[in-house]
């Protein structure tokens, strides 16, 4: 009898363990189910490279949104990577343990702040500042890059810290014993050693920046065009979906799901790369 119960428990646990697989499958299935028929009919190349998005006239080109997503993501990396990697190196190699113990949870708190709050501060503080100092409406690539750059900091910092502390201590000790300064050790020994971990952190941060929605809607102005300057308004793929989903009917709605399919593809590629890098490192 006991044996029987054990078997039932074991079987149900195996079933539970497949919940993530099931969820991922369901997500892909339902997004694709709505989006793929549209893509088949409209044509993927036309959808990806078309620069006109006029749902009223059945013109669906998401090139401006793809470019918008790429611009704000790159901008976020330019802001976030130096700050994040720098802070992580400082915390691991230059700061003492007490400082680290205070700052680490503070940075985790930064990760917990809702993205709408970031967006709100973006509108209240940053956008007026950009408008006054650089012109334009203030709702721009620059504003979005700064806000997103800050939002991805926690991801980059914590993964960089993890991969730095995971290095065997002999690396560091050997280098210091040879008379190198801490900085030389960082540059010549630690960074090359932790390279793949840091890269994985950056890619995950990139994923977060591409996927961010609410903050981006609030601070980019959402114009549909290929931007020519940092102070131009843009629209990202995520904001396109979130903004128009509420208003979309029929083929317009399918087009937005197709947009989600493309976004899903982008994210899965980034995820897979990050996971491969992390797995390679841990072997």
């Amino acid at each position, binding site marked *: 009898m006991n044996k029987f119960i054990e078997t039932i428990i074991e079987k149900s646990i195996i079933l539970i363990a497949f919940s993530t*697989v099931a969820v991922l499958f369901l997500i892909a299935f339902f997004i694709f189910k709505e989006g793929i028929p549209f893509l088949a009919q409209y044509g993927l190349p036309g959808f990806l490279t078309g620069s006109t998005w006029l749902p009223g006239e059945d013109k669906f080109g998401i090139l401006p949104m793809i470019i918008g997503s790429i611009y704000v993501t790159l901008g976020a990396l330019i802001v976030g990577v130096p700050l994040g990697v720098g802070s992580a190196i400082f915390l691991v190699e230059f700061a003492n343990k007490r400082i680290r113990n205070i700052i680490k949870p503070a940075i985790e708190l930064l990760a917990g702040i*809702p993205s709408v709050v970031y967006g709100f*501060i973006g509108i209240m503080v940053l956008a007026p500042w950009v408008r006054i100092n650089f012109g334009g409406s203030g709702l721009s690539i620059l504003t979005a890059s700064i806000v997103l750059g800050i939002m991805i900091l926690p991801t980059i910092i914590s993964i960089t810290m993890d991969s730095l502390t995971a290095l065997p201590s002999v690396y560091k000790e050997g280098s210091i014993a040879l008379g190198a300064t801490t900085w030389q050790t960082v540059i010549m020994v630690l960074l090359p050693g932790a390279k793949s971990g840091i890269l994985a952190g950056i890619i995950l941060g990139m994923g977060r920046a591409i*996927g961010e929605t*609410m903050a981006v809607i609030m601070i980019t102005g959402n114009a549909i065009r290929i931007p020519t300057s940092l102070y131009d308004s843009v629209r990202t793929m995520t904001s396109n979906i979130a903004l128009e989903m509420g208003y979309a009917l029929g083929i317009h709605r399918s087009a937005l799901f197709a947009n989600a399919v493309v976004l899903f593809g982008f*994210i899965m590629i980034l995820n897979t790369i990050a996971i491969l890098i992390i797995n390679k490192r841990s072997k």
Partner: protein
Amino acid sequence: MNPKFIQKIASVALGTAMLVTLSVLIFIIFYILYQGLPIVSMEFLTTPIRDMGKSGGIFPTIISTFYLAFLSICIAAPLGIGTAVFLTEYTRENTVTRVIRFTTDCLAGIPSIIFGLFGFVFFVIYLGFGWSILAGSLTLATMMLPTIIRTSEEAIRAVPEGFREVTYGLGGSKWQSVTEIVLPKAFPGILTGIILSMGRAVSETAALIFTAGMSLHTPVSVLSSGRSMAVHFYTIAREGISLQMAFGTAAVLIVTISIINISSYLLMHKYMRKYA
């Protein structure tokens, strides 16, 4: 150039990066609290929303937030912990575990707007839950799974092998070792993961707008629609309904998130000291 000099410059530069990061954090928190706390009062917390958010309080949103966070954890915790138990206790590394880990990692990277769309088509329309606390919680639960799985797995792995062997030695079954030894020992670690996921539920917006709706009323059953604090904040801040109310709501949000984060941190700390 003198390496000592470069070392100096480098440490100053890195320290600056750290300071910038830290001051941004401090600025955000103080800005919101400074503007928002004066608005927060007992009345603000306990009265219903009036006039679309122009006046009144945020009571319904607090209830919705609590409801969503609690229900989604009730759904996600058994699944997440179960998966972690499977990965650690019931199997060895093989293709199956690799597939499960891969999908878990992928799920962690999917943007919330996609979860929102999925929840909308699947829970709201396909399963017919409508905009409701139930649909919102289910969507949140799918988003929380990766965090709960990962933290539970780590916590379970940290339980020394010896404990399990003792159970077997006493003639206990695998399930007994899991429920009576492994899970109680790993409980603080698992709880940390659960509390962190609660934070995610509290701060989520994009996924909830499409699944839980934006009703201004206090949700009664799981099939009522309700707006969480974050969603309420988003609406009133963006539409300029009332800047005051927006700041007040944001302050309550930030305080809630801080409490969640700090308690998970303290818990983790206590737990680590016990095992280290």
